[in-house]
């Protein structure tokens, strides 16, 4: 099983709306699109201010605001599939059983191209989801999803951009059945005043680059998708040059919703952007 992406630029989880919001600015057909993280039951997300700026960065405390997987499957997925997007559904459960249940339901839905297991939320406790404190916790969630997902569906494990643990996490995730790893999520941080939040945007690009470099260097056979701080072609090329097979863009879309288009136009012809085959 390998990861075949139709484009080397993916829309990062939670940053592309439900799809139609992005459609005015991007050709949706063939676009690898990761949904916001879905949980079994609807979640209202955090009350109060959810976002603040930090120099070249963004702090968010959305708190996994989502309508629950049933609503997603019925009302949001069909639009994405009709638009021709390559849909990766991001999932998080409060228990391993919930991860498995979510994977079963999503894996059976027509048009889903893959699953992204979110085991790297910057504030899992606050969001009430399974806490992947150790690499083996993350791996057990990946294993639960892998077992419940049809064998021909790629499972991506989205990891924390924790330089000290990321190689170990990637190895454990792949051993647990991940087709590829996404390196990584928001950097755990705090809003002014101290509420937990995730830091994203160009401010974290050097952290993402370090994490991608470590994983690609130490685990050359693992397919890595780089994520964190990509806002322009140079940023995308930096992660691809470090060995990533593709990149995800998130925060940059809030500033310029055409970012994915711009990057694709510039990268489209790069030979380095072809996903690597599994050996």
């Amino acid at each position, binding site marked *: 099983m390998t990861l075949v992406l139709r484009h080397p630029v993916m829309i990062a989880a*939670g*940053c*592309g*709306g439900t799809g139609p*919001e*992005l*459609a*005015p*600015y*991007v*050709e949706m057909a063939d676009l690898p699109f990761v949904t*916001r993280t879905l949980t079994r039951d609807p979640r*209202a*997300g955090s009350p*109060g*201010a*959810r*976002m603040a*700026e930090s*120099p*070249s*960065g*963004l702090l*968010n405390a*959305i708190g996994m*605001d989502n309508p629950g997987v049933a609503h997603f499957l019925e009302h949001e997925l069909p639009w994405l599939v009709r638009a021709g997007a390559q849909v990766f559904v991001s999932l998080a459960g409060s228990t391993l059983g919930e991860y498995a249940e979510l994977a079963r339901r999503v894996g059976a839905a027509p048009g889903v191209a893959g699953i992204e297991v979110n085991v790297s939320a910057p504030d899992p406790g606050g969001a009430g989801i399974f806490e992947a404190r150790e690499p083996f916790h993350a791996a057990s969630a990946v294993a639960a999803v892998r077992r419940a997902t049809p064998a021909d569906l790629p499972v991506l494990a989205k990891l924390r951009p924790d330089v000290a643990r990321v190689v170990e996490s990637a190895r454990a995730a792949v051993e647990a059945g991940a087709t590829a790893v996404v390196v990584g999520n928001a950097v755990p941080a705090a809003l002014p005043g101290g509420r937990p939040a995730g830091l994203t*945007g*160009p401010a974290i690009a050097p952290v993402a680059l370090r994490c991608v470099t470590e994983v690609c260097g130490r685990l050359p056979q693992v397919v890595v998708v780089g994520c964190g701080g990509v806002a322009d072609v140079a940023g995308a090329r930096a992660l691809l040059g470090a060995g990533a097979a593709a990149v995800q863009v998130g*925060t940059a*879309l*809030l*500033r*310029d*919703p*055409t970012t994915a288009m711009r990057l694709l136009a510039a990268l489209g012809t790069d030979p380095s952007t072809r996903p690597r085959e599994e050996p």
Partner: protein
Amino acid sequence: MGERDPRHVLAEVLASRRAGAFRHLTLTARGIPELFRPGTFVAASVAPTQMTRRALWIHRVSPTGTFGPTLDVVVEPRGVGGRWLADLTVGARVELTGPLGRPFSLPREPVACLLVGEGWSAAPLFPLAERLRDRQSAVTFLLSGADEAHLLTPREARRMARAAHVVTADGSVGRHGDVMSVLPAVLESTGAAVVYAAGPTALLRAVAGAAAAAGAQSQVALQEPLPCGTGLCRACVIGVRGTDGAAHQVRACLEGPVLPGDRVAWESLGGGR
């Protein structure tokens, strides 16, 4: 990427002029003026270190100028983004996305309309007044501000409307006081059937309440922070009440920023600014 979809463009500043405490900017923005309806806004990218956008009301459009379609915005030079925008000089470039959001709804029949706006927030009320006047509605303005410098153009309001009432907090021009000190009397004298309001949340809430008490409809232009303006980030959720009375969460940038005053679950909102 359809005909009627909002655009993301690199706009160029054609003119920048001071108006009291504010700056009026005229920008080229191909595609945006053509789709404009009063109450819609543009999201502007500011300094490269700032990841969120700044929403700006579209104050005026001219679809056919010498430089092609242009739009005007009014900015107050405060905060990182406000100052960055106000400092833009002629020829400077700025990324704009728009027009975004739901516009003001217009009454089907000609009726008396009261337009209430504070400071720069009154910007979207001027093109609204034009549309209402074109449809034979009687338009009255009620403009407020901290002082004369923070009032958006009573002179223009008088030109467009049947009457323009002015209140300032320091009494430097017009009546001394705030909107609520004169609103009930103005509602009564105009017999307004619809009240349109733009300003900080506390003002909108008070205006919506007063309108309801006078038996008028209200349309409020909310100014809750909109970090992306395009519906992508979900940081702008507010509560609205459906026809069943139950509150549900919507994104202010998509379902708003203009909403009927009686649909807003006011207790779900922050202070606004």
